């Protein structure tokens, strides 16, 4: 499978992370490591209730309020919103609050201890209004808490004719599946520093995924022109989607305080505030009705997919879109209907989290596939084998699979590597005698890389490259490093394209005053989409050197350096840029919601082995095998690390990570009671790649970052059913959930 051409010097090699030394020595600077002269600290006063009318704000006695900078909605010079998609979310609540922890008042002071006292001394007088906390309540519309009908967005996918298929079915299987909220839990809490002067305008530094989102939000909020707002990304300690939209909110707050006080202001959340107030993965409910033929072929899939968006739209329409498109999975089925809705409730807005809607709908589908197999009397792998989509066939949204795909092959490899057949047999024999039951299960799935539908076309991302007088090549992109390896992978792509030393490539820190808009760092698009632009931008540099005659066709790094130097001496500068254009033949119809939803898909089969203790209700994952096809792997160590990290988060999603809500407020907003996997909880995570180079990705690469979060939950819950014979359709499978399900079985 290896497509290693002899010429590749950097692609496919595990080159150590570019900023690795700075990170292991503690020299990497994160936003909380920065201090500015005269800097104030900022704090946020938040609503204690989920929905209500603000009657007044009281500042209790005993605090020297005149020393404080105080900001409310009245101090906003521009539009009071966090500009994103529908611009419905206020930056500071005005008159009404729509969720607990909604920001109402901002405070700044040089002494952070006094600041904390002051924050507690602000009393919000809010008249509570009835609130909505479930998908069903929202759909029932007894309380309309958003727009006219509580619906942020809905989609309909239709291919074939589901209604006429039921009559021809051998069997029809129904199921309902639920997934809970999940906290991104990047270990670096969110934070921003802002400065504001009349001459220079506004500058913010902070932890973020999308500098240009923040840039636009600040222009709107402060009513400033493009060149008066500058956004600089500092080293970012994890994002996973959690730093996609919320940084615009915090940057806005810091900016308002900086503008009013005339001083630099730093806002860094503590863990509790970060967990309670910022976005989480959308909770979801999916209903499936599946018709199959006697031969075990899918005949019809009728899917209803609903996600809870929380109080404001934020990114819910696009989360819903990705979840909808992934809901029918990597299977061919002639009749598919998917009806989906993102609904409003009075929870803090749910937002981007690795996978972006897909882990939810894939969980439902892959559980449903196991139910269908059971009813048909087929092995789970056999049902899948009979229905995998093949090259030339069409996915539910009308996308013809043009690339080579071999899901059956991926599955065979995963089953072999996990010793699936032997274990399935052995567990079945041994379980009746065992106190702790063993089980093994699988999930097969796909994940689209890049923005959904026309997203990439609208974005029209831009990447720049320039040579320095020392003969180095600088890559200019707004794509951020947050641990996933952007800097390293871009350097590899650029060095490979130019045929020069890796160390000659420099990746410029994302700063809106310096780098062009290469789009947000989300949707597994950075390597595949932006990486391709990096490749063509640096090739533009080489082309200019070749045409000028300064560089021979074949050259060494030193010759390249000299040519750059000479070119800059002659012409003053050597620059190039590259703008996105869709690969030929890729087209999406927004109105019909049909077409090529993604430029490329990654394909995968994951297998989980579990132990289920029927006395303590404890579940452990004992082994995990992840086999995937992600195009060419640019950096095996980084890619493996991405998969392992995603699988670990997926195991947390499946078993441990339970957001406990009370009246719309997260009550376990601490690491002591919101449990993510530690090094003692995880099984060996064994990662394997099949490499099928993708023609339109840099060096043949596709996207990778989100894929690994899709598979673990269904594979694990399928394994739980295999172990305990219990049908669990809700995650996380905490001991309580397992107990309930078991009692349901034995009652």
């Amino acid at each position, binding site marked *: 499978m290896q497509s290693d051409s002899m010429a590749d010097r950097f692609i496919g090699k595990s080159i150590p992370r570019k900023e690795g030394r700075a990170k292991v020595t503690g020299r990497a600077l994160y936003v909380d490591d920065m201090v500015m002269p005269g800097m104030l600290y900022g704090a946020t006063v938040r609503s204690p209730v989920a929905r209500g009318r603000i009657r007044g704000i009281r500042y209790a006695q005993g605090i020297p309020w005149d020393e404080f900078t105080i900001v409310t909605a009245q101090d906003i010079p521009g539009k009071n919103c966090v500009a994103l998609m529908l611009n419905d979310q206020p930056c500071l609540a005005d008159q009404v609050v729509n969720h607990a922890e909604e920001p109402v008042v901002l405070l700044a002071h040089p002494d952070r201890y006094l600041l904390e006292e002051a924050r507690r001394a602000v009393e919000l007088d809010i008249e509570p209004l009835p609130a909505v906390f479930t998908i069903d309540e929202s759909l029932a519309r007894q309380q309309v808490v958003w727009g006219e009908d509580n619906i942020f967005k809905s989609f309909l996918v239709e291919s074939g004719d589901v209604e006429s298929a039921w009559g021809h079915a051998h069997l029809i299987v129904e199921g309902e599946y639920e997934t809970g909220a999940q906290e991104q839990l990047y270990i670096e809490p969110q934070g921003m520093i802002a400065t504001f002067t009349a001459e220079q305008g506004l500058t913010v530094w902070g932890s973020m995924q999308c500098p240009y989102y923040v840039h636009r939000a600040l222009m709107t909020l402060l009513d400033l022109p493009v060149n008066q707002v500058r956004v600089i990304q500092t080293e970012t300690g994890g994002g996973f989607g959690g730093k996609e939209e919320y940084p615009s909110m915090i940057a806005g707050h810091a900016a308002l305080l900086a503008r009013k006080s005339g001083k630099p202001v730093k806002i860094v959340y503590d863990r509790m505030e970060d967990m309670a107030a910022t976005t989480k993965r959308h909770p979801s409910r999916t209903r499936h009705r599946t018709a199959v033929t006697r031969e075990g072929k899918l005949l019809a899939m009728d899917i209803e997919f609903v996600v809870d968006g929380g109080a404001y739209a934020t990114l819910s329409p696009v989360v819903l879109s990705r979840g909808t498109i992934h809901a029918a999975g990597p299977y061919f089925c002639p009749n598919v209907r998917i009806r989906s809705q993102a609904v409003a409730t009075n929870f803090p807005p749910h937002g981007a989290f690795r996978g972006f809607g897909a882990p939810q709908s894939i969980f439902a589908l892959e559980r449903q596939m196991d139910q269908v197999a059971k009813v048909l009397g087929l092995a789970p792998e056999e049902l899948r084998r009979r229905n995998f989509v093949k090259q030339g066939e069409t996915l539910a949204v009308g996308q013809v699979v043009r690339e080579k795909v071999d899901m059956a092959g991926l599955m065979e490899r995963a089953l072999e590597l996990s010793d699936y057949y032997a274990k399935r047999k052995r567990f079945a024999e041994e379980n009746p005698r065992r106190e702790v039951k063993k089980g093994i299960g699988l999930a097969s799935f796909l994940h689209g890389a890049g923005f959904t539908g026309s997203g990439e076309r609208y974005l029209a991302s831009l990447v720049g490259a320039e040579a320095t007088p020392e003969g180095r090549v600088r890559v200019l992109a707004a794509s951020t490093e947050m641990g996933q390896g952007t800097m390293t992978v871009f350097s590899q792509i650029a060095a490979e394209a130019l045929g020069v030393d890796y160390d000659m490539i420099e990746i410029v820190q994302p700063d809106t005053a310096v780098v062009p808009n290469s789009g947000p760092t989300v949707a597994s698009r950075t390597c595949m989409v932006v990486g391709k632009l990096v490749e063509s931008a640096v090739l533009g540099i080489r082309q200019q050197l070749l045409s000028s005659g300064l560089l021979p066709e074949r050259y060494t790094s030193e010759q390249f350096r000299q040519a750059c130097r000479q070119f800059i001496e002659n012409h003053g500068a050597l620059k190039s840029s590259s703008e996105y254009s869709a690969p030929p033949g890729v087209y999406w119809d927004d109105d019909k919601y049909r077409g090529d939803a993604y430029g490329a898909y990654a394909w995968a089969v994951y297998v989980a082995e579990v132990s289920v203790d029927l006395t303590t209700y404890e579940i452990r994952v004992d082994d995990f095998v992840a086999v995937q096809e992600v195009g060419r792997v640019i950096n095996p160590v980084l890619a493996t690390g991405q998969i392992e990290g995603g699988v670990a988060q997926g195991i947390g999603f499946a078993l441990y990570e339970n957001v406990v809500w009370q009246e719309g407020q997260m009550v376990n907003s601490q690491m002591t009671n919101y449990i993510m996997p530690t090094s003692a909880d995880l099984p*060996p995570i064994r990662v394997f790649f099949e490499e099928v180079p993708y023609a339109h990705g840099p060096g043949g690469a596709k996207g990778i970052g989100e894929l690994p979060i899709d598979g673990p939950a269904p594979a694990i819950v399928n394994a739980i059913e295999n172990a305990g014979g219990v049908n669990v359709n809700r995650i996380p499978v905490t001991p309580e959930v397992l107990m309930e399900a078991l009692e349901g079985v034995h009652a």
Partner: protein
Amino acid sequence: MPEVRKVAVSFAVNGEPRTVEAYPMARLLDVLRQDLLLTGTKEGCGEGECGACSVLIDGELVNSCLVPVAQAEGSRITTIEGIAGETLHAVQEAFVECGGAQCGICTPGMVLAAVTLVGRQSAQPTEDDIRNGLAGNLCRCTGYMRIFEAVLQACEKSVGAGA
């Protein structure tokens, strides 16, 4: 309410004697980061759960967010800034090579935990030794597998070097 006064606290940090004026209950974490500008020590939770704030006090791995500075009087403190000499420590080297650091925010604490673990090992540690030795340090990025590998590699090197 009797006014709490700042007191002078002396200790050695990365081999250098230091004295700070601080409230006795101030967290060692804040004193290191704000007063001594040693920002390599990170805050992930402030409640003793994540280990991002790990430092060594008299050779013991502790969460500096839980240590009142007064308690550090007279001690020897090692932070991440004191781990590399002219060259990287074997553990740091291995973290870079094996992909043990992704976003890097847990890394200083993780490196200190790994250095402690490797230092205690007379032979190759078992997988359980490593899992338990690092269980107080949370990492959200890596799923820990590359970190385990880094620890093993560092052990091989230091055992190989007769350390």
